[in-house]
């Protein structure tokens, strides 16, 4: 990288050697950070330096680095993914920071997301919630013609808006109650707006909420902090969809 301003940052990073090891915030100076780097590339540079000095590099989750996989997960200065609207940490660029700025980097904090190492948390709780009901039961057979099932544009749009969820868990990390309602609601709303998923909508809402409660997530208090940090900008409207579906199916099952 030849163009762009270079800056120096003062990092405060959560370091924890293992799931049961004690952790603490540790200070690092990040030198030679180009303003065009992504936040994860900045951490790559820091880790390169740490490797040279023999220190263990900072562990963090990442995969696609283009904002679509939901792997990167860090709370930057108190906001999951750093608070730049509609982006994941991997798509957050260093030009949004000032030279010499202090940056606090922490893992998602929730009982249901235990820290594995440094900034990496175990988000299997989400997988178990999906396994409990986040699917559509389809008997195998000949694939129907794509246009044989008419779906109103409005329903398709609502399903698609909810389906944008990448399951990163920023909603849980931001919520004062560490509630997973936006995640679960996105899945329930997504599937219940399609004819294939509508059939099991009630059972799905109940089994997924039962699993969500069992995993130890908090309850929803409508702070809307989840919506504010969601990299896919999913509206709390889906939570109302879930509440309606859940209440209806709990009383009319």
């Amino acid at each position, binding site marked *: 990288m030849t163009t762009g301003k270079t800056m120096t940052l003062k990092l405060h990073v959560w370091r924890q050697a293992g799931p049961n090891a004690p952790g603490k915030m540790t200070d690092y100076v990040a030198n030679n950070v180009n303003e065009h780097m992504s936040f994860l590339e900045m951490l790559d540079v820091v880790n390169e330096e740490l490797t040279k000095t023999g220190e263990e590099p900072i562990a963090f989750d990442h995969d696609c680095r283009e904002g679509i996989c939901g792997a990167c997960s860090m709370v930057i200065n108190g906001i999951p993914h750093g608070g730049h609207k509609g982006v994941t940490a991997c798509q957050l660029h260093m030009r949004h920071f000032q030279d010499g700025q202090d940056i606090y980097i922490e893992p998602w904090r929730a009982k249901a997301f235990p820290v594995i190492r440094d900034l990496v948390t175990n988000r299997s709780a989400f997988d178990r919630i999906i396994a409990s009901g986040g699917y559509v*039961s389809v008997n195998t057979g000949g694939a129907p013609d794509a246009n044989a099932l008419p779906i109103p544009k409005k329903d398709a749009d609502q399903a698609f808006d909810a389906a944008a969820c990448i399951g990163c868990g920023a909603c849980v990390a931001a919520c004062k109650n560490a509630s997973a309602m936006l995640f679960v609601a996105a899945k329930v709303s997504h599937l219940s707006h399609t004819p294939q998923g509508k059939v099991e909508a009630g059972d799905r809402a109940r089994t997924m909420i039962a699993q969500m409660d069992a995993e*130890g997530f908090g309850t929803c208090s409508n702070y809307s902090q989840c919506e504010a940090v969601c990299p896919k900008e999913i509206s709390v409207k889906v939570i109302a969809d879930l509440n309606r579906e859940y209440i209806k199916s709990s009383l009319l099952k």
Partner: protein
Amino acid sequence: MSSNASDARPVQDTTPLLMQTWQLMNTSIGAKVVMAVTGVGIWFWFLTHMAGNLMIYAGPEVMNSYAAKLHATPALLWVARIALLIAFPLHIGSAIRTNLHAKAARPVAYAYENRSQANPGSKTMLISGLLVATFILYHLAHFTWHWFGADNVRTITIDGLQGIDTYRMVVLGFQQPVIALIYIAAQILLAQHLVHGLYSMCQHVGLWGASWTPAVKRAAYVLAYGVAAGFISIPLSVMFGLVKLP
């Protein structure tokens, strides 16, 4: 029963509706439904209470006559009292339960304070609610049980009914600035509790519309602070001498 042993989907449920309601109340979403439903109930009582209080502007005869008639209708009074005696413990109980749940859900706090957006009033619902509940007990001790301020309570006969001179009791009570200021502070606290509460009720029972949910949020401000203004006007009118003893 399903013929397919591997099919994990629930079979036909024959649990009675009352049992289903109880089971729902014990889930995370159900606890919030309890909060919303009892909240609506308490809010309706709050509105009728304000309507009664505003009769103070119609003068001592109208207000005392209303009070005497209300007390001469014990059925109505006790239905309301029993409903509130059920609603308040459920509302407060759900609040404490879900708050403990939320605390347990985040055992390790963030080093850097969470700065994601939220209405400050929404994050302090438990505190504002408990303070208002404390105020209500103090308010009952004053105007209903007469544990203090009993010197201002005088028995009268109005419309052939025995009652207390409510008008006189309220005016003499609010002529003491400390009592008036505590009342005003409690109303403001309650208003900001309701700003989040009124919107939240809709969300918890699944009422959401792209066109009207923003209007509900704005209406919550108008309703919450509007009702508080109605209540607050009474101690202010007494303090400024607009409402006084005849």
